[in-house]
Each structure stands twice: as C-alpha cells, then as structure tokens.
C-alpha cells in the first residue's frame, strides 16, 4: 500500500489537487465558501510587492507617456516648421506686395508734379547687349506710350522711349552712350548734356571751363529738350576735371536712378504722335 502510494504520489497528489479545486469551485459557485482562509493571507503577503510593482509599472507608464509626449512634440515641431516655411513664403510675398505698393504710391504722389497723361509702367526686361543700356516696359502704344516720351521715377530721370509696339516699349537709359539729357546744375544753373559713355561712366558734356562745378552738385533737367519736364533729378556730380586742355570740363555724374533697382516707372511727355504705332 505504501509502495503504491509512493509510486503514484504525483498522480495521487495531482488528483487530490484537482478534486480539491473542484470542491472549492463548487463551494464558491454555490456560495458555501463564505470565508477563504488562504486568500487573505496570500493577498496580505503580496500586497507590499504588488504596491511596489504597481508603482514601478506606473513609473514605466509615465516614462512611456513622456516618450509619447516627446514624440508628439516632434510631430508638432515638424508641423510647425512646415507652417513657418509656408508663412515665410507668405511673408515674402506680402513684403513684395508691400514694396510694390509703396513704389506705386510714390509714383502716384509724384504724378501731380508731372504733365498730365503720364502712364505707369513696369520694367519687364533689360538690355540684351552690353553695348546698349536700355530696358523694356510692359506697356506700349496701345496704352498711349509713344517714341520720345520721357521715362521717370520719383527719384529722377530714367531714360527716353525709343520705340513702342502695341504692348511694350523700349527705353534708352540716360547711362547709354547714345542718350542725352539737357541739364542744369541746380546750384549755379550751368547747362550741359548728361550722357552715358562706353567706359561705363555717365558724364556731363559741354560744360564750359569757366563754369563753377563742384563735386556733389545736383543736376536737374532743364526742360529745354522738350522731352523731360523741368526740375527732375538727373544725378550728382562725383568728379570734376579741368586740367585737360580744351573748351569744356570733364564732369562725371552719378545717376540719380539706378536702372538695376527700379521696377515701376512713369512715362510722360508728348512724344511723337506719328510714330506711336510699333
């Protein structure tokens, strides 16, 4: 008997455990198991461990949540970066619109000082040749622009229309060697012609040696060429040379308007009506 028990002790103990668990189950299901003697002790033993483990679990959860938050920040950061880029583009566009608006506003303010019928135009192209200093306007004969009309800005004289097609006009800048603007030295009223040169220097020609011209003198249109209205800024004297022999002085001029920096211009003057087309 004892040998049998010893031989089958695992089987018997397992069977006993099975029966015991079934008994507990039945008792618990029927409500007979009012007091569980082992459960409270087990829970009491496990309680501190579970509290500690739960605290650690909470700590891990918190780390996980923080990581999720950081990951969220990263996503948010990327989204905001994109938004900033979009806003930068928008800002750039608005600044450009603002700058254009200010230019046009200045032109509008300048308009009353000019003869009636001035036309606002934008520069859409520059000279394709290094030999000529010219630019193209976005308006032409269809808008009332004719050959010979003056092109100006509030800062000063830009040039003269040399040809006009239906919707564009070519302007010869005052820094071109072929151009000529009748000017007065504002301080002394001495006369001369401002023209460009192939040396890339704008000069004031035909100024008598006797005339008092100094560096910094402002040159304005005389109005005598019947192209540019009187009193518009042309440039500033930057160099005077009287040492050469001859009738005239050599005067170098800094144009008031840099063609590279202008975008909108006013086209004024009568021009030549018969050549308005093309």
């Amino acid at each position, binding site marked *: 008997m004892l040998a049998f028990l010893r031989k089958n002790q695992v*089987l018997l*103990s*397992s069977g006993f*455990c099975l029966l015991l668990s*079934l008994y*507990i189950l*039945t008792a618990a299901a029927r409500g007979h198991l009012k007091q*569980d003697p082992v459960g409270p002790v087990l829970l009491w033993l496990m309680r501190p461990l579970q509290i500690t*483990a739960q605290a650690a679990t909470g700590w891990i959860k918190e780390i*996980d949540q923080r990581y999720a938050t950081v990951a969220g920040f990263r996503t948010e950061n990327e989204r905001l970066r994109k938004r900033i880029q979009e806003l930068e583009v928008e800002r750039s566009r608005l600044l450009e619109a603002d700058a254009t608006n200010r230019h046009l506003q200045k032109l509008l303010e300048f308009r009353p000082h000019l003869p009636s019928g001035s036309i606002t135009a934008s520069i859409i192209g520059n000279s394709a040749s290094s030999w000529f200093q010219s630019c193209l306007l976005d308006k032409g004969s269809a808008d009332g622009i004719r050959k010979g009309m003056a092109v100006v800005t509030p800062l000063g004289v830009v040039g003269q229309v040399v040809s006009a097609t239906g919707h564009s006009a070519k302007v010869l800048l005052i820094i071109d060697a072929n151009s000529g603007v009748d000017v007065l030295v504002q301080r002394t009223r001495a006369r001369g012609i401002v023209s460009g040169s192939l040396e890339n220097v704008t000069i004031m020609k035909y100024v008598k040696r006797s005339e008092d011209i100094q560096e910094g003198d402002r040159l304005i249109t005389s109005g005598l060429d019947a192209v540019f209205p009187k009193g518009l800024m042309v440039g500033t004297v930057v160099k005077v040379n009287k040492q050469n022999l001859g009738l005239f002085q050599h005067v170098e001029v800094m144009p008031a308007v840099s063609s590279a920096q202008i975008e909108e211009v006013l086209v004024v003057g009568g021009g030549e009506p018969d050549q308005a087309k093309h």
Partner: protein
Amino acid sequence: MKLSLLFFTVGMLLVLLQTTFFHLLPLGPIVPDLILVLCVYWGLYYPNVAAALGAFALGYSVDVVSSPILGLNAFAMSLVFLAVYLSSRSIWLHNPLISAIVVFLASLVKGAALVLVWAVFLSMDGLWTGAARYIIMEALVAALLAPFVFALLRRGQSYLERIRVPAE
C-alpha cells in the same frame, strides 16, 4: 527543498508580474501566461508532490488576485500539470521546439478546462466563440515564450543542484 522554494518564489514572482508589468506589453488584452509555462516545466522536468501542490497553489493565487470564482485557475493548473506529467512519459525528445509545442497544447488544455468549468458554474452567452480567440492567442504567446523561460528555469535548477551536491 531549496529547489521547491526557488520554484515557489519564481511562481509568486510570475503572479506578481502577470498582475502588473505584463499588462504594459503591447498585446492588447492578452497577458502572457508564464505560470502555465512554469507548471508545464514542473510536469516535464520536476514532477513530484511539491510541484503538484505548487501548480495548485499558483492557480489558486491567480484565482485570489483575479478570478471571479475561486478554484477556477487552481483546477486548470492542476489539470495542466497532470496532463503534462502523464504525457511526459511518452516524450523522449527535449528541445525548445518540443517545449513550445507542449506549452501550446497545455495552454489549449487549460483554456478548454477554464471554459468548461466556466460553462458549468458560470453561464455566459457566446462563451465559446469569445474564448476561442483568447485561447489561441494565449497559447501562441505562451509557446513563443516557453523556450526562454525553460532555459532560465533549467539554468536556475542546475545551479541549485550544483550547490547541493558538494554540500551532500
């Protein structure tokens, strides 16, 4: 004795882990049943009275901390231990794959036992259809973890046996 104590400590630790840390794993409602793996290990490699009582005790512990009715898991774990113990006589090959398969089957036995007892003692509509998914998932997770747990337990067992031999 030392070994039994170690196994019991490991068992209690597993109960603790299953009620706390294992819920952090991204397995949805499935909690890896390492207690079952331990019972299978006992059935395969440590079949004695202490192990049989240990399986019952661990199942009972699970009942105490989480089951709606006492004895449910105690019955299931005892059954698993007995089933594995009986079948271990016909298992000649012991490797990680076999252990995973045994754990998988044992998990199915446990699931079936739970559902059966549940159906008898606690009536519930749609029990089988709902339980089937849990049983399969639990069995898969347990089978995947079994080789690692087995390796750890075997290492601990051989370590304690090495200590015991010189002392004897």
